[in-house]
């Protein structure tokens, strides 16, 4: 076991940090530390401009192969980039769905024409993507999608109808990837297709969902005979589930250390508040602050283990399987801790009518952490069944 990074990686770290120090300033100063989860509605135009700035510096899609404009950065370097990015207060990435999900999926499952058509826009920080997976009746049971895709021989296009929900950044994206049923008589994970659909067309309607924070990161997206070209299906009709699951597998966790840096910023703020208002002298709160610190440090150790690619028995990566349940539970507890440290002041909203502080929004939005991306209950099923070999849930 070795914990330190190589000298080359440390040089890379310096390069990233220097570039960020030189560029994340001036017109971009106001967006530092903004636009993260729960704050994705903020500074959208400025953050789009920032994506292009990143692209000019060669800092988008660094993990992609060089032939598609990436740097073929190693896992360590991607980790370092994400850490430095978060440390510098880099704003929430508008392009992350394209960069971390869509791009790798096209590189793995797409054809040459699709890669040529779609990858450059992602790499340049000009074209943004959103994800059309969940539906009103397909949440945890994702395979239950009802959205249909029908090939129209006359126009030579796919026609898509149905409804998606919980679509982040739909109103800011040019494209959406959609799983839809190509075989109307199919059920569950059979008979699905994976489609690349332009948002700007008459058949697509976006309706924001107002959340408990009063803001709207999520949307409903309605497809009413929306169209895409014959070539805009990834894989063959019927292979959509394979592509969709492959895409989720690209979330390899390189962004987790960056996410943890955001968590660290939040914890630091809680510590500052506690020192300033005397909560730091309350024995019960001291215990909870230390517990949060321990939890976050272990989250980092666990990610390092995950990224080093070894379970203790060399096969199943159990530390990766607990990751979502671990961080979501930790973060939700941090939200409550923040309010308890603030005390009476936690109720007072800084801006009328409902402009929440960062910690207030974190407190409320962390209730979503244990739901999206696989609820804690689903995570526990997966852990029990796949890692511990306990009997599977009955399926209808």
């Amino acid at each position: 076991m070795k914990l330190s990074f190589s000298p080359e990686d440390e040089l890379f770290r310096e390069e990233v940090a220097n570039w960020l120090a030189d560029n994340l300033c001036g017109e971009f100063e106001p967006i530092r530390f903004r636009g993260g989860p729960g704050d994705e509605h903020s500074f959208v135009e400025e953050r789009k401009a920032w994506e292009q700035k990143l692209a000019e510096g060669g800092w988008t899609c660094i993990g992609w192969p060089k032939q598609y404009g990436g740097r073929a950065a190693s896992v360590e370097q991607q980790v370092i980039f994400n850490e430095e990015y978060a440390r510098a207060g880099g704003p929430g990435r508008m392009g992350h769905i394209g960069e971390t999900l869509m791009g790798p999926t096209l590189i793995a499952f797409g054809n040459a024409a699709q890669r040529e058509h779609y990858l450059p826009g992602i790499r340049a920080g000009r074209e943004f993507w959103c994800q059309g997976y969940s539906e009103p009746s397909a949440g945890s049971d994702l395979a239950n999608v009802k959205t249909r895709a029908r090939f129209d021989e006359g126009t030579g296009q796919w026609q898509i109808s149905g409804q998606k929900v919980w679509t982040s950044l739909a109103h800011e994206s040019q494209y959406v990837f959609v799983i839809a049923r190509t075989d109307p008589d199919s059920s569950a994970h059979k008979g699905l297709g994976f489609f690349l659909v332009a948002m700007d067309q008459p058949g697509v309607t976006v309706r924001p969902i107002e959340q408990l924070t009063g803001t709207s990161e999520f949307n409903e997206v309605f497809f009413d005979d929306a169209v895409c070209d014959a070539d805009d299906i990834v894989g063959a009709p019927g292979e959509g589930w394979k592509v969709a699951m492959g895409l989720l597998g690209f979330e390899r966790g390189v962004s987790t250390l960056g996410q943890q840096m955001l968590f660290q910023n939040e914890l630091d703020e809680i510590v500052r508040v506690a020192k300033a208002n005397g909560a730091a002298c309350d024995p019960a709160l001291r215990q909870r602050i230390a517990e949060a610190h321990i939890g976050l440090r272990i989250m980092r150790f666990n990610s390092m283990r995950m990224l080093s690619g070894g379970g203790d028995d060399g096969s199943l990566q159990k530390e990766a399987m607990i990751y979502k349940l671990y961080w979501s539970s930790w973060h939700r507890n941090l939200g409550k801790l923040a309010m308890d440290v603030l005390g009476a002041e936690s109720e007072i909203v800084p801006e009328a009518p409902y402009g929440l502080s960062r910690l207030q929004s974190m407190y409320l939005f962390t209730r979503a952490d244990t739901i999206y991306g696989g609820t804690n209950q689903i995570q526990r099923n997966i852990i029990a069944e796949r890692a511990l070999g306990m009997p599977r849930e009955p399926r209808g």
Partner: protein
Amino acid sequence: MEFRFTEEQQMIRDTAEAFLAEVSTAAAVREAMATERGYSDALWQQISEELMWPALHIPEAFGGLGLGFVELAAMQEQMGRTLLCAPFLSTVGFAVNALLVAGNEAQQTAYLGDIAAGKTATLAFMAPGSRPDAAAIQATCRSEGDGFVLDGEYRYVLDGHTADILVLAARAPGSVGTEGVSLFVLPASTAGISREWLPTMDQTRKQARIVLENVQVERSACMGEAGQAWPALAKTLDLAAIALAAEQVGVAQQALDSSVAYTTERVQFGRTIASYQAIKHKAADMMLKVEAARSAAYYAACIADEALAGGPLGSGLAEAASIAKAYCSEAAFFNTGCGIQLHGGVGITSEYDIQLYFKRAKSAETLLGDTAWHRERLAQQLLDGGEA
């Protein structure tokens, strides 16, 4: 960054696992724990003389194997899984680390050599009713002639009644806190030392009371400079806590594994109870705890390696130790407690082993600072400094 076992480390772990499954069976544990001595001499001989486990991280110059702390942690984890009854933590986790940190070359040559050859050892520092900080040191040492005279009483000394070699912490009369602390290493047979077994709730690890009455020791028994030993002792306790944390990972793992096995066999309402979500979700929570604990313990073991070798990350020893000990204590307690619950009625019988793990989890939690104690230690670092 390679935060995973090397092939050699994996092999050491696997070898330990296989050997312990053979020798540290439920029957063997129950037989050993029923004795006052607490372990089988024959097994200890095999472990120390044939396998040389106590010599694991003793440098080759002193007759050891010269391996690192990660290997030690891997071995402790396996010992926790089988509740091995042996004076390993006391000898290696406490005494060897004390000698490595604080011993001079003559002491290391003599005592590490003895330990590598199969002698047992322990460390005593806590007065009755104390917590594991500097204030726990109440035994006194006064300079007299060419040596020192030691007096006082220790409790909670692991294997103190059987150890061949003792490392003792004592303070200058009238000193308080971290000032005036000295460490001594001496044969347990030294005149004036009386030792008495203390029966414990966790019978798989023995504790003793040691009383010093006018114990005369030569200056050569003093480790480092007299009165200046607190930093070395603190470092030793952190290293021991990390070894213990790795053991707790093994305890937590076994509680999970045996609970999954039991609930998979047990049938109620016509189904194996492992098929109920109420059971599965509890097991999933237990796995989360043990995997997070494992990450914490092995991170700390890497830091311990650096601390012993004088590497740059070694300055994080106290923090890493507190994180590991706080979390692994909680994980072992949680998993063994849930383990009893998942075993249902048989969980509280003496026939089933889960109760032994539950008791070990508690004794390990209390030893070297429980979760709350380590959290407070971290809170001081986080909250009582100047800038946030």
